[in-house]
């Protein structure tokens, strides 16, 4: 029997092979059979979680709430690197100079990332915009979100900062950032489920020492991080409390 590992679908597509390399390293180092299953979208990943098909996960902060509070997952580590922030963008030639300039009827392009969408929605509150007076266009990828704005089909878009920075300079030139989030404590976390609790300490030790070898550093870099940092269960509980205020 092998254990199932998955990664929050919020990472850029170019990193798919890097997560497979990470998984191979994890399996070898732990002498554990681990199967990496990547889901295209949050809905598919949530269905897998609900069906008990996930034993280990690099989780989106919003999914961490459910996993820790309801599914008995334990926090092992968090990646150190650029924080998980997001931007609200508009077309470079849009008349809006800031969020308060946006008006009811604003067309918004986004993906199904629950974290980016929740924080994005909060950043629209100063303009009194909510789901009732905006038109939301759900797209599969961040490139599509950017293109909708460039084609004039959406007025604004929600993008993680990393996704925005990975857009080509040609695309980015025609976009303008209205606001960047600075939520700080809301981060991805590496969690292990009940089936792997016994190996939790081994996995934590392995991850926390990853940046001590050049091979480990290279793998981390490919995943967009510099190291794994320890997290206490209370750190994650605190994050979950914060997130709970954002979803009501």
């Amino acid at each position, binding site marked *: 029997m092998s254990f199932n590992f998955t990664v929050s679908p919020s990472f850029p597509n170019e990193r798919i092979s890097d997560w497979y390399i990470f998984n191979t390293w994890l399996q070898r180092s732990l002498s554990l059979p681990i199967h990496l299953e990547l889901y295209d979208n949050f809905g598919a990943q949530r269905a897998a979680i609900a069906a008990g098909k996930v034993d280990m996960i690099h989780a989106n902060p919003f999914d961490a709430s459910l996993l820790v509070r309801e599914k008995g997952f334990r926090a092992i580590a968090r990646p150190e690197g650029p924080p998980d922030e997001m931007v609200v963008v508009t077309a470079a030639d849009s008349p809006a100079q800031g969020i*308060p300039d946006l008006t009811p009827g604003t067309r918004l392009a986004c993906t199904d990332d629950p974290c980016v969408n929740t924080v994005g929605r909060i950043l629209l*509150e*100063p303009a*009194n915009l909510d789901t009732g007076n905006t038109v939301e266009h759900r797209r599969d990828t961040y490139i599509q979100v950017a293109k909708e704005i460039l084609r004039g089909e959406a007025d604004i878009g929600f993008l993680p900062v990393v996704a925005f920075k990975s857009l080509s300079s040609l695309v980015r030139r025609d976009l303008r950032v209205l606001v960047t989030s*600075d939520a700080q404590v809301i981060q991805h976390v590496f969690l292990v489920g009940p089936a792997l609790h016994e190996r939790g300490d081994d996995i934590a030790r392995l991850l926390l020492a990853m940046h001590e070898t050049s091979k480990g550093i290279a793998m981390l870099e490919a995943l967009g991080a510099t190291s794994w940092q320890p997290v206490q269960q209370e750190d994650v509980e*605190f994050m979950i409390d914060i997130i*709970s205020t*954002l979803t009501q």
Partner: protein
Amino acid sequence: MQDMDRAHIAGDAAEHVLTYADGTSRRVYVTSIETPYPHGKLIVSRTNTAGIITQCNQSFVDMSGYAMDELIGQPHSILRHPAMPAAAFRDLWDTVQAGRQWHGYVKNLRKDGGHYWVYAAVVPNIRDGNIAGYTSVRREPSRVNIEASEARYAEMNRP
């Protein structure tokens, strides 16, 4: 709590004596200067079950005008503005002590006598089934909602 220090106040100020829920009082100075909410940020603080500040983020420190070590260990009411009706905070405490989340618009008093408006949430930190403390997360309110709250609180404060 100590009275506010007139020396820290920027410009013309009105003097008020606040009486807190526990019967103690504090002299504060209030100017009309508003510090705009820092776009995109969340202002976060935590208290113990008695409302004493135990932890806060840099945005909280920056907006309050105090230094971090002037805040930690102080009652959260160090930020109470005289324009805020006592009933709003009674409702806050009743709600969170019952284990539920409270949301509301709050005008906060800065060390320099100025103020800033937030849309605040307070959530009980439930650990092993008990309330271990409280966390507050604030975000930017719209101008329309600030004005509506200002009018509502003025009405509530009318004797």
